[in-house]
């Protein structure tokens, strides 16, 4: 095995171009487990810890450009206002020690259907910025990023530079089912974001299909129902029948399996419950801010 230690982003891309089989290692919280247990013996490890750019983030007008290696702890501490869904999801990852090392770039690299960043990214709306020495930078819409179980749209010579995540324009929630609070891989998970500016709702489902997915039919149903009922303007409570139909459609968007963590039918059921709850929480919060701003006006 060789240990490659690029000191800059350009060097990292050059090393990846020269050795496309090199395994990047950022926080190492996925990679080292595989090496410790001899599940993986890469020819080259490509250490990204020295590439300072990957640890930085920039808050722009529309979105946050989050460096691939920014650890979850930093997201929770610094980006809660801009990225509430991702901050909540980050807090459910493993333990403080893991959150101090692991980040969204590694979560995307692994592309596990259970990765906690994914539902939050899908719900918020995001693009993955990847680059190669040969072809430069491209942006992959998050909806196109997950291509199969633990597979993603990266080419062998590409690295993830950052994720561009839409800044929240409304309430966001993240919900996860597990046996305890700390150190659990999700049985299933659900992210929801209200986007009052575009009057849309977006979702993300984790651990209930071969890849993280959005419940698109549920979103379309809800967008239409909210528009029709004038909900965005009148700020009424969501009709229980609308919430139920939304939850059912979210369940239907799942394509889960039975495994040690839960059965397929449990996952479908739980996703429906989380969909209804996160919708209620975010909508109540939206109504609250509407009332507050009306009161001020």
């Amino acid at each position, binding site marked *: 095995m060789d*240990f490659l*230690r690029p000191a800059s982003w350009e060097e990292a891309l050059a090393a990846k171009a020269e050795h496309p089989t090199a395994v990047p290692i950022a926080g*190492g919280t996925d990679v080292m487990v595989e090496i410790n247990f001899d599940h993986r*013996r890469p020819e080259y490890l490509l*250490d990204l810890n020295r590439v300072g750019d990957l640890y930085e983030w920039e808050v722009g007008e529309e979105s946050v450009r989050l460096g691939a290696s920014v650890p979850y702890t930093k997201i929770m501490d610094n980006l809660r206002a801009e990225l509430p869904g991702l901050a909540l999801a980050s807090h459910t990852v493993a*333990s403080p*020690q*893991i959150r101090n090392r692991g980040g969204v770039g590694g979560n995307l690299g692994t592309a596990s259907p259970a990765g906690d960043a994914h539902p939050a990214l899908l719900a918020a709306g995001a693009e993955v910025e990847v680059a190669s020495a040969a072809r430069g930078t491209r942006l992959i819409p998050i909806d196109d990023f997950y291509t199969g179980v633990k597979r993603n749209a990266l080419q062998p010579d590409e690295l993830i530079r950052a994720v561009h995540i839409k800044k929240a324009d409304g309430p966001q929630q993240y919900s996860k089912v597990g046996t305890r609070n700390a150190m659990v891989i999700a049985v299933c998970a659900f992210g929801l974001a209200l986007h009052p500016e575009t009057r849309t709702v977006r979702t993300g489902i984790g651990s209930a299909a071969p890849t993280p997915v959005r419940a698109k039919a549920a979103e379309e149903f809800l967008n239409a129902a909210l528009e029709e009922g004038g909900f965005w303007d009148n700020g009424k409570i969501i009709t229980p029948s609308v919430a139920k139909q939304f939850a059912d459609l979210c369940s239907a968007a799942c394509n889960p399996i039975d495994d040690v963590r839960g059965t397929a039918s449990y996952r479908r059921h739980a996703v429906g419950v989380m969909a209804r709850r996160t919708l209620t929480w975010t909508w109540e919060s939206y109504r609250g801010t509407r009332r507050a701003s009306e009161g001020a006006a």
Partner: protein
Amino acid sequence: MRVNFTVNGRPQEADDVWEGESLLYVLRERLGLPGSKNACEQGECGSCTVRLDGVPVCSCLVAAGQVEGRDVVTVEGLADYAKQRAEHGGCASGACGTSLDEAQQWQAKGTDSQTGEGTELSPIQQAFIDAGAVQCGFCTPGLLVAADEMLERNPNPTDADIREALSGNLCRCTGYEKIMDAVRLAAARQGEAV
């Protein structure tokens, strides 16, 4: 490969390191510092917790090559680390720290309550002994490093803060109540000392 890094305030060099080796392995097998424990090698138990540039991490999940030029504190150096922090707000001179020899010999003797003899422990270490938070002791080093770091950041933790900070450290013996007592005790003593 060779890895140069700082351990407990002193520069160290580890030789013949395999590229896929963990920091935990380097500490235990190459530097002879068995304080950091190996229980799971997959980040689940926290018994290998050390500070990497001040941040608590599972040393079993850090690749050895990633620590080149960086700063590691292990449980063997915790007493000195806490002392420097209390007296000088940290080690600025570079003259402090725990040598490899001292670290290898290090034992948690504590201060005997009757004779007053023994080595000086960090407040969190003494509190673990006084509260009876150590049974088999396997989880203790990781818990000490994690708890000490929390008290550094948050001198007046609530019970929820303590549980959160220690949620990555498993103990199969104590049932955690005595560990909670120990951290509360260390926090209270820290408050009195100020």
